[in-house]
């Protein structure tokens, strides 16, 4: 929906000659010649990201054939992706809406700590889950309020939340890792119970992605997100309540952090103030690799999730090959740069 069709853009004028040109351009995509084939492939959404994933998988099959293609490895990739994946969905909304949320990792940590305090745990697993979601959403609402009604720059407001939420999580837990009590093992079941070989939390991740995609592409909320991020003044003059919408975007991001907190409690059986360190950077990187503009107004959930999977598979490959994590970080850095450069090229080709 947001992809610019390269062939449409080639006719600058909309009068009769422009019309003729447009037809001509459609008849010979991207000017014909050897670029024709590439142009046609470029039109399939996210083809570059899918290709990158395929190449990474091939690397895995060649370098570590015994361990990479196993079922358990696939499950561990997905389980690893699930936590940041849920956060990435929220981050995609915020970034398409023209903002940025740096506080996601810290808010997730705070939610996990709050939900695993003995006081909360006394009420049972359901209350713990609701608590995590409420804490996440509350922090997101506060972010949104400061940004849309307090007129703070998103970067600063969420940076403040990052620092403060991390601190509050440390205060609450007294810097100790809080275990999920045996009585509340229902939460841990998300990680251990499997349907069709996949742990429940992978399904939670999938459901969040699907719902996120539906909201972004099929509802007025999603439409308005693109409008608010693409041109806030035009959105306001079209009668859209830009402030309220912006606040909702951060609340949504916080909500996703709450769900991510449940997933991380399930995976680690703990709540800790150290959870989710630098997750914000992974989430933002995934969104950017997925083709979302940091300036807002354009982007997709599918792209962001593919970007995240690329990151996760790289991590997995480095671990399986016994390479050190420093090289892994260098590789990720290069991938971010390469992805953005490639996108800019395809964007240029289309204008």
């Amino acid at each position, binding site marked *: 929906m*947001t992809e*610019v*069709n390269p062939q*449409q*853009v080639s*006719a*600058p*004028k*909309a*009068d*009769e000659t*422009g*019309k003729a040109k*447009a037809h001509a351009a459609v008849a010979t995509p991207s000017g014909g010649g050897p670029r024709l084939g590439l142009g046609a492939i470029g039109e399939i959404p996210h083809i570059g990201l899918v290709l990158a994933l395929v190449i990474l998988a091939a690397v895995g099959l060649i370098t570590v054939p015994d361990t990479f293609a196993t079922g358990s490895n696939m499950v561990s990739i997905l389980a690893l992706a699930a936590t940041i994946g849920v956060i990435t969905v929220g981050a995609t909304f915020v970034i398409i809406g023209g903002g940025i949320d740096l506080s996601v990792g810290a808010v997730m940590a705070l939610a996990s700590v709050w939900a695993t305090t003995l006081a909360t745990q006394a009420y049972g697993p359901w209350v713990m889950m609701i608590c995590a979601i409420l804490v996440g959403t509350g922090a997101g609402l506060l972010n949104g309020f400061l940004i849309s009604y307090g007129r703070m720059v998103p970067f600063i407001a969420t940076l403040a939340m990052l620092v403060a939420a991390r601190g509050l999580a440390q205060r609450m837990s007294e810097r100790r890792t809080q275990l999920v009590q045996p009585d509340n093992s229902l939460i841990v079941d998300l990680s251990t119970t499997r349907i069709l070989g996949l742990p429940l939390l992978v399904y939670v991740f999938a459901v969040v992605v699907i719902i996120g995609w539906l909201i972004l592409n*099929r*509802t*007025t*909320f999603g*439409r*308005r997100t*693109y*409008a608010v991020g*693409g*041109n806030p*003044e*035009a*959105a*306001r*003059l*079209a*009668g*859209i*309540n830009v402030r309220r919408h912006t606040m909702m975007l951060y609340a949504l991001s916080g909500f996703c952090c709450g769900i991510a907190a449940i997933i991380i409690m399930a995976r680690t059986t703990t709540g800790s103030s150290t959870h989710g360190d630098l997750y914000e950077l992974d989430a933002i990187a995934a969104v950017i690799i997925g083709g979302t503009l940091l300036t807002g*107004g*354009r982007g997709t959930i599918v792209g962001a999730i593919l970007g995240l999977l690329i990151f996760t598979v790289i991590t997995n490959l480095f671990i399986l090959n016994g390479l050190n994590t420093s090289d892994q970080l260098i590789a990720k850095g290069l991938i971010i740069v390469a992805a953005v450069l490639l996108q800019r090229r395809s964007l240029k080709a289309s204008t």
Partner: protein
Amino acid sequence: MEDISREQSETPSLLAMRDIVKQFPGVRALDGVDLDVRAGEVHCLLGQNGAGKSTLIKVLAGAHQPDSGEVLMNGEPVKLTTPTAAMKLGVATIYQELDLVDGLSVAENVFLGHEHATMGFTRRGATNAATRKILERLGHGEIRPTTEVGRLSPAGKQVVSMARALSHDARIIVMDEPSAALAHDEVSNLFRIIREVTAQGVAVIYISHRLEEIREIGDRVTVLKDGRTVAVGLPAKDTPTNKVVSLMTGRNVEYVFPPRPDGGFGDEILKIENCSVAGMVRDVTFSVRAGEIVGLAGLVGSGRSEIIEAVYGARRFAGKITLNGQVVKAGNTTRSVGLGMGLAPEERKAQGLLLGQSVARNITMASMERYSTFGWINRKKEAEEAAHLVKALDIRPPDPNRVIKTLSGGNQQKAVIGRWLVGEGRKLLLLDEPTRGVDVGARAEIYALIRKLADEGVGVLLVSSEVPEVLGLADRVLVIREGRIVREAGAGELDEHTVLDLVMDAHPVTSAPSHD
């Protein structure tokens, strides 16, 4: 054309432009313009909006390349290929929105781009000293070179812009509506500075709509109309206003206005009572009836756009505005849209469009509730409505899925207006410069569309800088000057001459910096 032969003196002019032609897609902005500027004079450039003044300045500044014609300086042909080339030849342009960096000091701004520096390290002492010298030359030794520009008043910034021009050893300084942002006493100060520089042999090309100012500061006047020079070198002091206005008016309007309806109008729908906008609009009262097109005529900065924005609730105002008896709330455009208003804003690209999105998305963005249930969009219905409007408005090319930035200005404008025609029930349309950047053919279509909507009972409030457009399209005209209605009359009772006279013959604004 008159006076041209008489005005050619024996000594070559400092600047001479001959038969400059500049064609844009769909518009011939300059169609044979001549300009003669002598050293040490203040040469005023007059003309209505669309007459070609801005294009001419841009040619002079090296920002636009003319398609034909020649430019001579001191009798030698020159090429103003880039802004840098123009600057090297001694042409400095001070645009209306002064291009200064607020966070840098006065001295840093003056020498921005040609700093006194050694190995990349700026020599602050030398820069400050040089700046001080220029400021003193301008009679503004009290402005400290180290002051941050953002802290200066509009008048102070103007001085800095002037200093910057002089730092380039400018021989010609072009000033585009320099007084628009200044208060009365600041204007006299500006004039003093202009006299200082012209006394030193620099020529100033002065653009203003205010005839009084031209009389006070100008030496000679060149009048443009429809991209042509209609008078060169008129004496600024004693050419009668009547004659100047006559030269500017009577534009060959090629576009056709739709006929006005015979019948009367409906009830008053929009009522504006004692409405004021801080510094811009003062105590304005008027109303719009159903089916009526009311035109606001006024200069940029007269308050006309602010009136429209206040009506839409997009700007803070004092007073009372009601649509069908329901109160408009400042800052709540959602409510205004709900009451049945629609706005086509002045800056189409910056305020109206989602440039990267499709025509359909741009059309449907304001009325998503119509085809959604609990936020869930019925995409088939949406696509049908968009396709219907693309067809009804004859948006070309007729493809709702096309990215809107690839359309011409006229077709983009149709989409912005079309946004408010989704479904029935729109009661009031606010159109701010609806034909800016629209070519002649599409103009006629937009005029016809506006009239058709009015005939269907929609009230229209129209703002335009082009007096013929307001007179040709509106049923009733309000002439706005300095935030007040100075004349209200049926469009048939006014002519272009009268309106221009009312709009231009103003005493300088006494307070309040201009917004646009």
